[in-house]
């Protein structure tokens, strides 16, 4: 935790500096552009949910919390703030791709993203794209993908935000960002940090969460410049996490984890009539240090550099046919204490096609093939269609073949790594319908995913384990979301949202539900606004999940509630103060067996917009 002081100081410095920056604000919504435009154009027959600022801010401690309360995704979180991995539609943690401005940022070593090391406040938009996205986003987009997007605009914007947070368990957070445009320039700079002793009580157990301290710091720069026929953009992000790993009900935590990531993306877009061309280059860096004993200087380490260059062309013919082709070359070089030094080259060719037959009906066909990486690369495809049957009813359907390539740990781990592994493959179909009655919006989706050659570590002999392409699974389920907004007179409004999912994820050999995939999950939020006052109540039900592959033991289901209120000060409307009461009824619950989650706790915050 040595760097903690330095990071806090840096944040405070930037908060102060940005607060004294440009003060003339503008309230109108500027026209914004996504760095990853294909997310919108080539996902029409897919379920795409966007989380707005107010939703994110309610659950901004970590990306885990943001998505746990506001989506159907289940998270297996090893105690609050510790390693957190998703299960999207019952798929495994490496089958959810995290896409930062169009680039897959899952770890080279584990194939996963730890959702607790990402700040949800660093992005203008967080989108959840359900279903297979392998063609667009490559390996790992099986259950779905989470999109962390930064946007840009050349409208007049001078906006600065500063937020401070203080909460139970010595939780301290700060965020500051400023967005400025001038002439042909767009610039967005921000920092964000949170730290916590995280020493909550295990409700009713007379025990505390010890050795669970965490610190997360991130900084971002997003820049765009208008060119003669296009635009040049640069997105940059740095994140630093330092955590001790807490123990469980019957173990004492000793280990620690420290990770750093940097991400940079440069893109130049040019438009020539109906043609658009985009040249991009990206660099991703990840480094982790795992300390078996956090008090000792001994650690295992891994670091990886990923270089990506791509050329994308898009043409829109007769305003109906949109064709996008992309060639992308990726070079990964990684070294780690347990995997040695290894490299991987991949050349990917992608063809995306969308045809808008009429205002109400469009369909898409997409293809991807990879080369050079040494695997038997399958052709990946997806097809989707969307039909707006009437103003209040629309249907969507999609089907796809997706895959996940083995990670460096799977391939090269000392004592087990299997260099003969092949990608996992999966097929899926989804049928969805959106129904709108006035202010009531619902979305109901049913899906089926069949996966084979799933990589599983199995004991080969004695103490040696080896990953092999062995497991077959079948996932199916339904998801429902509901949103309702009503204005109760000129000064009152009520906003209601809820989601429910039923997930069956079955190991076909054992005929059992996969571990840590609850059958049921539901969540809901009611928010009430009156003038400058806003209050909300939020509930989450997480069903029982099995913890053993024979389904002989499980972690119990739970229901937790959070409440919050905020008010914009009458004398200074740009200043909002508020508080949140989390786990309001002090419920004992575990997310992972024997690892209790926090007791009742509070957070107070202050947000300033200039």
């Amino acid at each position, binding site marked *: 935790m040595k760097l903690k002081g330095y990071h806090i100081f840096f944040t405070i410095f930037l908060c102060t500096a940005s607060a004294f920056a440009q003060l003339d604000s503008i309230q109108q919504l500027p026209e914004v552009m996504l760095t990853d435009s294909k997310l919108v154009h080539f996902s029409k027959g897919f379920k795409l949910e966007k989380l707005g600022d107010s939703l994110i801010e309610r659950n901004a401690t970590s990306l885990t919390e943001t998505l746990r309360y506001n989506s159907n995704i289940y998270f297996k979180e090893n105690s609050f703030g510790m390693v957190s991995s998703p299960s999207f539609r019952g798929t495994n943690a490496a089958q959810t791709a995290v896409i930062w401005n169009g680039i897959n940022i899952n770890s080279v070593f584990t194939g996963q993203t730890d959702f607790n090391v990402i700040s949800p406040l660093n992005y203008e938009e967080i989108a959840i794209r359900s279903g297979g996205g392998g063609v667009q986003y490559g390996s790992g987009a099986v259950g779905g993908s989470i999109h962390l997007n930064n946007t840009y605009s050349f409208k007049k914007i001078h906006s600065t935000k500063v937020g401070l947070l203080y909460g139970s368990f010595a939780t301290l957070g700060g965020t500051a960002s400023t967005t400025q445009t001038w002439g042909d320039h767009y610039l967005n700079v921000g920092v964000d940090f949170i730290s916590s002793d995280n020493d909550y009580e295990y409700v009713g157990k007379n025990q505390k969460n010890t050795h669970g301290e965490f610190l997360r710091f991130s900084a971002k720069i997003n820049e765009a410049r208008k060119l003669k026929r296009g635009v040049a953009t640069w997105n940059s992000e740095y994140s630093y996490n330092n955590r001790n790993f807490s123990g*469980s009900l*019957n*173990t004492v935590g000793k280990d620690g984890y420290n990770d750093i990531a940097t991400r940079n993306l440069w893109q130049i877009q040019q438009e020539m009539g109906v043609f658009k061309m985009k040249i991009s280059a990206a660099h991703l860096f990840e480094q982790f240090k795992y300390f078996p004993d956090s008090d000792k200087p001994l650690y295992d380490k891994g670091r990886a550099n990923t270089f990506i260059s791509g050329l994308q062309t898009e043409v829109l013919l007769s305003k109906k046919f949109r064709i996008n082709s992309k060639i992308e070359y990726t070079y990964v070089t990684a070294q780690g204490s347990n995997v040695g030094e290894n490299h991987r080259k991949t050349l990917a060719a992608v063809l995306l096609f969308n045809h808008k037959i009429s205002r109400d009906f469009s369909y898409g066909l997409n293809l991807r093939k990879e080369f050079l990486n040494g695997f038997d690369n399958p052709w990946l495809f997806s097809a989707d269609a969307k039909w707006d049957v009437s103003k209040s009813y629309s249907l969507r359907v999609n089907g796809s073949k997706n895959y996940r390539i083995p990670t460096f740990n799977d391939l090269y781990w000392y*004592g087990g790594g299997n260099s003969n592994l092949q990608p996992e493959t999966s097929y899926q179909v989804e049928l969805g319908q959106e129904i709108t009655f006035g202010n009531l919006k619902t979305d109901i989706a049913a899906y089926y995913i069949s996966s084979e050659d799933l990589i599983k570590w199995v*004991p080969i002999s004695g103490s*040696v384990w080896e990953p092999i392409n062995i497991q077959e699974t079948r996932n199916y389920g339904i998801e429902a979301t509901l949103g309702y907004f009503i204005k109760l007179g000129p000064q009152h409004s009520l906003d209601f949202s809820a989601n429910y999912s039923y997930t069956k994820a079955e190991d076909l050999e054992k005929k059992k539900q996969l*571990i840590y995939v609850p059958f049921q999950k539901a969540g809901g939020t009611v928010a009430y606004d009156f003038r400058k006052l806003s209050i909300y109540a939020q509930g989450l039900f997480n069903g029982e999940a099995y913890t053993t*592959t*024979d389904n002989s033991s499980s972690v119990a289901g739970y229901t937790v509630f959070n409440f919050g209120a905020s008010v914009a000060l009458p004398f200074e409307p740009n200043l909002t103060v508020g508080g949140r009461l989390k786990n309001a009824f002090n419920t004992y619950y575990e997310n992972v*067996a024997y690892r209790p989650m926090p007791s009742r706790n509070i957070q107070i915050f202050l947000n300033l917009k200039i």
Partner: protein
Amino acid sequence: MKMMNKVFFLAITALFFVSCSNDDDSQPEYVPAAFEKGILVTNEGPFGNGSGNITFISEDYSTVTQNIYRTVNGTELGNIVQSMGFQDDNAYIVVNNSNKIMIANRYSFEAVDSIKTGINNPRYFMGTDGNRGYVTNWGDPNDNGDDFVAVVDLRNNTIAATIPVAFGPERMVTYNNKIYVAHQGGYGQNNLISVISGTNLENTITVGDVPNSMVVKGSSLFVLCGGNPSYTGNETAGSLVEIDLANGQVLNTYTFGTTEHPTNLTMDGNSFFYSLDGNVYKLNSSSISLPGNDIIAGFFYTMVAKDGLLYATDADDFASRGSLKIYDLSTNQQIQDFQVGIVPGGVYFNE
């Protein structure tokens, strides 16, 4: 009929759990010395997120009781029940990840005491006459310099002395008041046997790489060494090493093929048994010539040969309940198969 008995017993046990969890005031009733004659299986439990436990199977195979320590005491053992040792009427249950030794009466499993200080990453317990017990400790598995053997004063169950040893101390056997500690090597590999007398490290004997199991036959100690696995970049063959217990000298070394890494040496009568590449091999202990005869197919996590039977555990995928399989060594046929707990790592007997 046997099946019915089992079902009935499980039903009773289940009822019993419900009743004791609903009523905290009444102590669970149990038959004293309920576990007097039979097989005890320690189940490590899921790593990190659960508790290990102990399964009891009666001598006549008619009853199987899961989770006996919790049934009797109402509390769980802790994370990773690594092994169990005995002295007099006590069982010393080594709970590795929770860093403690739980002591219970070996026949009733009523809790007696526990040891929670003075040990660090404990692995095995060996009791001796004279009120001394020995516990091997890895310390930090990534630190090769902090491994030790703790000497327990069995009268008050405290650590009376600490003997620093080479890294990765694991299983122990005792002969003639001396303790022989195999240094399997923790997360790495080692090739030593430490000889402890009282509270002193008397000698170290170099054997093959990764000594994983030992038996005493007559005045010889047979040490089965797995050899370095291939991923170390320095793969070495497994070996069976015979040590003269009178003087600590290596008498014979029998070598396996370079890529053969045997485990689980156990002895019954005049035969040795070991596991290798999914088979159980039998070896005449009086005239050793490798390899032995493969008699039973199966990947076993641990196995013990006793009185003409082989007790072998199958940990399946290490994330679901495993099983104890019993083979008749005269026919090499499986005669029993019991479901036990998660990752069954030790087989012991009350008789």
